[in-house]
Each structure stands twice: as C-alpha cells, then as structure tokens.
C-alpha cells in the first residue's frame, strides 16, 4: 500500500468546494429539448381522421373515436391516446399523413387514478396544447411513400399522330409497388359515389391476388375498366397520402387489375340469390347507369333488355370519350361480360313516349338512364353560324367513325373534360387549337392531368376569356371575339366570378368554334303525364332513395338525376336502382 494510493483519493474533497451538479427545482422541471417527445398534441382542423397513427402503433395505444360527423375527406374520428400503452416512439407523428399530430415537450403527469391517462389531443383541453416545441413531422423522413409510381405515357409528339391509347398502364411490378403505398384508411370509400371497396382491392393487388382484386372491384362497379381509364377520381382527391404527397393512383390500379383478365366471366363468380327469376326489366339508354342496372339485375335472374339509340352501348363513355383515352376493345370486353350474364341489347333504337308507356306495363321495372343530350348554346351573337359546333356532336361523329373536318385552326370554348377532349381530338385531326375559358386554369373542372396532357400536345389555353360574339369573315372563316375578364370575389367562401373588362376586344380568326360549355336534359319525348310527375323545374328527374321516380316501376339514374354528371355517379345511381328493384322484388316474394 504505497503512500500515493493512500493520499490520492483525498483529492476528491476538491469536489466538496465546487458547485454541486444538482439541478435546482425552483421554477419547475427543466423544459424538454426542442424536439422532446412528450404528450401528444393534435391540430384537429388539419386532422382527417385517417387512423394511420392508430394502425402504426405497435402498442394499440391509439383509439379512433368519433368526435364529429363524417364528411367527405374526413372520417370525423380523432385519435385518443392511452398513456397506459404509449411508449413515446412518435411513429404516429412521423407517419401522420396530414401532419396534424405532434408531440409537445412537456413530460410531467402524475395522478392517483389510473383511468385518467387517456385523452383526445386537441379536443380535450390540456395545458400543453399550445406548446411550441416538441417532436413534429419533418420533411425528409417519411414512413409512408409519398411518391406515386410514374405512369408510362406516349410521347406528346407521337400522341398527336395516332389514336392509340395515351396511357400505357402499370406493369405488374409497378402496380404492386403503387398498391403498397396505401394505408387502408378508407377515406376514399366515402368519396367514391359508388363506395367501391377501394382499400380492399388495393390490398389484394398489393398481395399479388389480382383475381380477388377484380372480384372486389366488380362487387359494386360493372364498368371498372372504363372507370380505371377515365374516372373523375373523387377518391384520389381525398386520399390521405395525397395531403402531403401524391395520392394513390387508385384509377390506374383499378385499370391494372381489370386489364389483367380477358375473360371476366371466369374470374367473377357471383354468389347471389336469383330473386329475379321470371321477371323482366327494360333499360332505356345504354350508358354506365343503365349497364350497371343491367348487369347486377341479370346475375340475379332478371331478364334485362337494354335499348340504345346508337349502334353501340356505352352512352357518354362510348360517344363522349375519345378512343385514345378509352379504346373500343375495353368497352367491348365489358359489354361481353354483360352479354354472358344474359343481358339483351336492342341497338339503334330510340324509345319514344308510347313505347315507354308500353314498357312500364309489360315489365316489372323500367330503368331510364338517357343522360344529358342537349348541348348548351354559346349564348353569344353568332352562335348559329355554321362552323360553330357543339363539342358533343363532334365527339360523337368522331367516335362513330365519321369524317370530321375541323379545318386548320380551332377555338374550343369551355374548361371541362369535354373541352379538353375536343381540343385534343382537334390536335389529332391536325388543327391548331386554342381553348378559351372564362376563369383561371385552377378553376377548370377538367382533370389536371388532362390539362397537362393537352398542353403537352400543343393546345394553347387562354384563360379569363369571355366570348363576346362570333362573326363570319369574308374568306369563310370565323372571327371569334372575346373580352378579357378579371376575377371578382363576390361572396366570402364562394369561388370568384369572372367579370368582363369592358372596352377590350380580342380577335381570333379560326375555322371552327367548338362549344363545350355543358349539356342539359332532353326529355321532350316523354309523355306529358309522366314528365309532369317526374321532372323538376330545370328539366331533371327526381327520384327517391330507392332510385324510383314518382311513377311506380320507373327508375331513373345517371346524369339526368345527379348533379355531378360523371360516370361513377351514374354507376352509383344504377346501384341504387338495383337495390330498389331487388328489395321490392324480395318484398313481393314475401
């Protein structure tokens, strides 16, 4: 035991005269670090109630509880955290698709009662609600995949030279990757008018079970391949992943699944009671709503006859959508399924009022889905000039395979999908195209992708342009005169209205003015005693919750009935009528 080892330890006494290490307690506990993971906070306004936090929580610490009525894009549920389970891993914060969930840097909570350690952040008031610091979502670290698998498309220069489908479609591998981005929240289900089982079939695609995916898809959509190509995708607009990243490519996935199989009848094995055995149903109009009714009733044993005025069923999806978006083969595949289910088609046959009365008497039910066939007029001087043509007429002629001449320079008036379609067709016909729209690009009802594609194909878009008149020029062309507009916010919360700036006139000399500013109902053919009962003052048809009009046995659906006027809403209407007819039949059985 050397002297050094006896003396050296006494140097420890130096510590006794220095400041103690102890953290003082005055002023409360030390604040947590700026990114400390403390109690949860939630911006309930931002939260969409998707439940992803709850799904990722390995401790099942998060319950989703209803705090508000559900609306489209918000389930009305909010996370409630059980601090008897939480481990403060903050996976819920890092995964939060809306970025609403966070953690404060407060960490003290002691209580004698074990049942108090639960609350709904943002709803139940807590002292740390306004905490500035704490763990938050951070750009650069995502637990969900924000980037959509890019869809292959034809080259823009190539597109204008061909009528081939622009969108190439996902490969199997791409589809699996894209499907795996889904977090299974179900917000899309609420947004879809037909309430398709979107997360379920995406899950099936992810798991590699395409047949099951198709079965789930056909569960409440008889024209999914059409939807997979041209749907307006309300679902994608509410997709929770879409809040911070690209929404799931739900449409493309549906397209992928349905394109996997050529013979759908083999894949689909409906297991339904044939309640309609021996009953007949007439469907007027072979559009999406009518075909939906036809298919689901046919598999239930009803004898269904579809009456179509054109030589091909499909309605607006046939005559109103260019073939480069929705090829004929796709449509035929779906019609084949209907045929295999026993649906009869009467083509090139326009039903008139007398026939309708007869049909009502002869059939158990009649479904009417004749759509909006009357184009809106330009409502400007010169609207009747030759060369001023409705877009729908042009689309129909084109789709029927007739020769369409648009000349060398075209102006398309309108901002919807029809306007875009008309302009893109005109491009393919070799014309220079300008779109004139009253409002801004962001206000255009057309799909953003469609607008982009159109621009890529060389379509020029002139916005805030109000048509003033159309004049015929001496050399047989048309002078399209328009005035610029400014956007005026008239009422808080409503979208701004364009207001003409007086005194300025712009001229555009073109060969054709294609008018695509919407369509209205054309129900003049109805017998007055029926139309009096079923039409409202705008000429649309009103139905009850079973899809039936005021006339017993007459059901209606599609653009005539709903105010959204898209294919998926028409399908939803068809499903409603199917429900109504089947329920009524069941009731009659009993």
């Amino acid at each position, binding site marked *: 035991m050397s002297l050094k080892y006896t003396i050296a330890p006494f140097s420890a006494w130096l510590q006794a005269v220095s400041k103690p290490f102890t953290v003082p307690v005055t002023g409360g506990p030390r604040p947590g670090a700026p990114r400390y993971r403390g109690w949860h906070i939630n911006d309930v306004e931002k939260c969409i109630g998707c439940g992803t936090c709850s799904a990722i929580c390995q401790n099942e610490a998060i319950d989703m509880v209803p705090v508000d009525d559900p609306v489209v894009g918000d389930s009305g549920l909010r996370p409630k955290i059980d601090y008897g389970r939480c481990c403060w891993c903050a996976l819920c914060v890092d995964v939060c698709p809306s970025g609403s969930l966070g953690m404060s840097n407060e960490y003290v909570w002691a209580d004698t009662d074990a049942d108090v350690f639960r609350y709904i952040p943002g709803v139940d008031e807590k002292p740390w609600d306004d905490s500035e610091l704490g763990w938050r979502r951070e750009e650069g670290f995502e637990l969900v995949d924000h980037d959509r698998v890019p869809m292959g498309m034809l080259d823009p220069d190539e597109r204008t030279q061909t009528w081939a489908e622009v969108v190439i479609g996902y490969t199997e591998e791409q589809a699996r990757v894209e499907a795996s981005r889904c977090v299974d929240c179900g*917000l899309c289900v609420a947004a879809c008018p037909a309430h398709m089982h979107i*997360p379920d079939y995406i899950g099936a695609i992810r798991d590699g079970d395409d047949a099951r995916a198709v*079965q789930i898809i056909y*569960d409440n959509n008889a024209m999914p391949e059409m939807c997979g190509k041209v749907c307006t995708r309300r679902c994608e607009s509410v997709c929770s992943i879409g809040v911070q990243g690209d929404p799931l490519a739900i449409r493309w996935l549906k397209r992928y699944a349905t394109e996997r199989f050529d013979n759908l009848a083999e894949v689909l094995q409906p297991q339904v009671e044939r309640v309609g055995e021996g009953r007949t149903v007439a469907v007027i109009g072979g559009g999406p709503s009518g075909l939906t009714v036809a298919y689901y009733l046919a598999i239930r044993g009803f004898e269904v006859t579809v009456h179509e005025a054109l030589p091909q069923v499909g309605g607006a999806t046939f005559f109103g959508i260019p073939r480069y978006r929705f090829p004929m083969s796709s449509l035929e595949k779906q019609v084949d399924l209907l045929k295999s289910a026993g649906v009869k088609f009467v083509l090139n046959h326009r039903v008139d009022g007398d026939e309708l009365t007869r049909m009502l008497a002869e059939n158990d039910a009649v479904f009417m889905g004749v759509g909006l066939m009357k184009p809106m007029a330009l409502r400007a001087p010169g609207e009747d000039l030759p060369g001023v043509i409705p877009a729908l007429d042009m689309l129909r002629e084109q789709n029927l395979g007739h020769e369409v001449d648009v000349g060398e320079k075209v102006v398309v008036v309108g901002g919807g999908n029809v306007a875009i379609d008309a302009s893109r067709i005109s491009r393919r016909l070799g014309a220079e195209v300008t779109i004139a729209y009253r409002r801004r690009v962001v206000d255009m009802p057309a799909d953003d992708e469609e607008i982009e594609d159109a621009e890529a194909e060389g379509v020029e878009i002139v916005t805030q342009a109000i048509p003033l008149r159309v004049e015929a020029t001496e050399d047989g062309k048309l002078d399209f005169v328009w005035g610029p507009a400014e956007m005026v916010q008239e009422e808080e919360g409503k979208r701004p209205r364009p207001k003409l700036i007086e005194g300025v006139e712009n001229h555009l000399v073109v060969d054709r003015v294609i008018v695509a500013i919407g369509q209205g109902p054309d129900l003049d053919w109805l017998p007055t005693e029926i139309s009096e009962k079923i039409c409202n003052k705008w000429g649309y048809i009103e139905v009850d919750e079973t899809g039936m009009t005021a006339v017993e046995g007459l059901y209606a659906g599609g653009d005539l009935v709903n105010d959204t006027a898209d294919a998926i809403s028409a399908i939803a209407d068809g499903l409603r009528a199917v429900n109504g007819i089947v329920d009524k039949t069941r009731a009659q059985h009993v």
Partner: protein
Amino acid sequence: MDEIIQRIRDNFGVLREHRQRDDLAEVWIEPRHVLPLLTWLKEHTPFVQLTHLSAVDWLEDGEFQLTYLLTDPVGRRSLMVAVRISREEATAESVHTLWAHAVTYEQEINEMFGIHFPGSPRQGVPFILEGWDDIPPMRRDFDTVEYMNRHHPSRPGREHTDPRRYIGQVVGEKGYLHD
C-alpha cells in the same frame, strides 16, 4: 471459407447452402451430422467459438430449425450450421460437451420451444419462466394475445373505431356480387 464449405460438402454432405456476406455463410445439414461436424469444426478448423445457438419454428413445414453460429475469431468470419428436425419428435443432440455455455442455450430452447437435448444438464429446469402451464411460448402455435387476454386483463373503457369499417358503415358500403 469456400474451402471449409467444400470440405463440409465432401465429408458430411450439405443439403443447402447460402452465402449471406463475405464473412458469413450458412449450411444446412442432416441431423445425424451435427455432432460430428461441430466437433470437427471446433477441433480442426478455426471455427472454435459457439456464438449462439437458436431455434426457428417452421410450423408450416412441421419442422424446427436449429442454427449453430460458429465464429472464427482470428479469421473474423462466421459459419451458420443449420439443421431441420421434426416438430413431432423434437430432440437434438446436445453440444454442451464441446462448449460449456451451450447448456444455457439448450436449457432455454428446451423451455421456450420444447426441444429436448438428451444428456444436457438442466433440461426441464425452468430458466426464465416460473409456473408455466401452457405450450412452450416461442412455438408459433402459441398465441400470446390470446394468452394475454386470459391472464392479463387490460384496463377497460377503451373503444376503437376502425376508420375503414366506420366509413363503410356510415356511407352504407355494399357489395353486389354477394348477397
């Protein structure tokens, strides 16, 4: 490494082999070769350390896999020797004579998987659990949540609404291919 595997192949027979990294390979062998092979590896090759011994339950195949990880501390590489044994008659030869600490591994596997190592001391002696009265917990067919619900009740008063189901219910989601 390749040379050693070649020699194992020649002398003992290899059912399957896999090279995971430059310094890590795995060979699957027949159960009867385990003891001779491990003895040979310990005595005649640089793979002298048993880093761990663990079991994997392949319930679907009706087999357990025992994985012996041997390490060559000087050459800085490892060899996994794997062997599949039947789940029904789950017995394997003990290697505690080669490495003393294998006793603990075998004791644990015996307790957690129910694999018996005849001759190994402490077989059947509880290692981790106390008063256990169910099937060995690490077996795949043991359901820990079900056991938890039976024995360790959770605090009541919680109710979870699954958004997917809830939305479907609220909007009246329906299928038409089935009744």
